[in-house]
């Protein structure tokens, strides 16, 4: 009989424990949007929880594509929980945010403990909203100028909330590190 030991994850290999933790982050990202609906009518406020949980997933796990995995799971979960306002594009939205975070994590592995870099990455992740919103409206055939303005409007809010979401991450990661939960 095999010994019941969970192999540790690494930069390239994702352990089941880490995968499940990333899954919880993804599900939380979706559920937080469902439960804590702010009714602000400010475009992009959902980016606060999206950026926070995807950054948290990447910052707590050593696996280098953790945010992308979380994005994939969050996109799928939001489609299947009926929260996908833009249908199949929800997956693309989450993945675009996640790719920015993974890319930043690849270039600066220690950015997740730094407020400035986390805010910058959160803002950059929020900026992807411009491209996703522009693509969706472009596919629908919206006038180019209106599309540009509407996407810019949505992206501005998303950047602001992405920055806020990013600023929360170092606080949590430092506490987790202090408790010895993450290395």
């Amino acid at each position, binding site marked *: 009989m095999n010994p019941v030991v969970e192999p540790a994850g690494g930069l390239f290999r994702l352990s089941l424990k880490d995968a499940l933790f990333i899954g919880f982050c993804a599900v939380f990202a979706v559920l937080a949007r469902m439960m804590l609906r702010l009714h602000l009518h400010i475009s992009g406020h959902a980016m606060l929880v999206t950026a926070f949980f995807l950054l948290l997933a990447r910052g707590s796990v050593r696996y280098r594509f953790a945010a992308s995995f979380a994005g*994939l799971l969050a996109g799928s979960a939001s489609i299947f929980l009926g929260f*996908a306002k833009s249908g199949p594009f929800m997956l693309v939205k989450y993945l675009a945010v996640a790719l920015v975070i993974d890319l930043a994590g690849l270039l600066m592995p220690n950015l997740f403990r730094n407020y400035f870099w986390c805010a910058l990455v959160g803002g950059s992740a929020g900026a992807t909203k411009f491209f996703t919103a522009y693509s969706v409206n472009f596919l629908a055939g919206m006038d180019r100028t209106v599309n540009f303005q509407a996407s810019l409007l949505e992206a501005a809010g998303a950047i602001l909330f992405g920055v806020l979401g990013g600023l929360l991450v170092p606080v949590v990661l430092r506490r987790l590190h202090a408790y010895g939960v993450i290395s």
Partner: protein
Amino acid sequence: MLSVKLFSPRKVSLPSASLEGPAPAGDAKWVGLRMLLALTLSCLAFAARTIPFLLVLTTVNLALLWYLGNGQISLRRELKAFVWQTLVILALYLIRFQNLTGLWGGFQISWQLFLALLPSMTFVRSTSQTRIVQALNRVMPCRTAFVLSTCLKFAPHLLAEIRSIYEGQVLRGARILPRDLAKPWHWIDLLHCVVVPAVVQSMALAGNIALAARARDFGSQPKRTCWPGL
């Protein structure tokens, strides 16, 4: 018992696999077909540029909504979102074109975007989430599908844990009641008192599930094995 308003306003329906049991293979195929139909209709909404096409697509969507939902699905929430979205788009079109002729184009765009959302909403509301997850096993890598379905299954348990953490912290005097959270400088308390313990709890739960799965030889076979067959 404390009334915890932060968690109470919205009911979140999550899968409860134990109540429904495994789906027969034919059922999973039917769910897969519905999923494909929803995605196709969503994509068609973006291709619909003429009024007759949009009208046909709307009719198909409404017929599907009525057929799959047995007339039980309410569109009120989606219609509210549609009205709000239409107003924003119309305002932007008015600013852009400075006359009323551009408004029809704006309305058409909003209509298209609504039709892109409607099929997914119909699909999700008319299909049990357990069936969806089981159908997912056929299109996703088995490990990813396992992680997604497990996390969705354990999410209510974790939410209950978070609720007790929240209530415990409120009893200890943490300033995290909804009226306290109206002041942004109290949000940091929520982060320290609820979010950090919740993350620690989810890590512990992930460790326990992983260990239980390993004890059942999860991952020893390249393809997932289970009983009865999915």
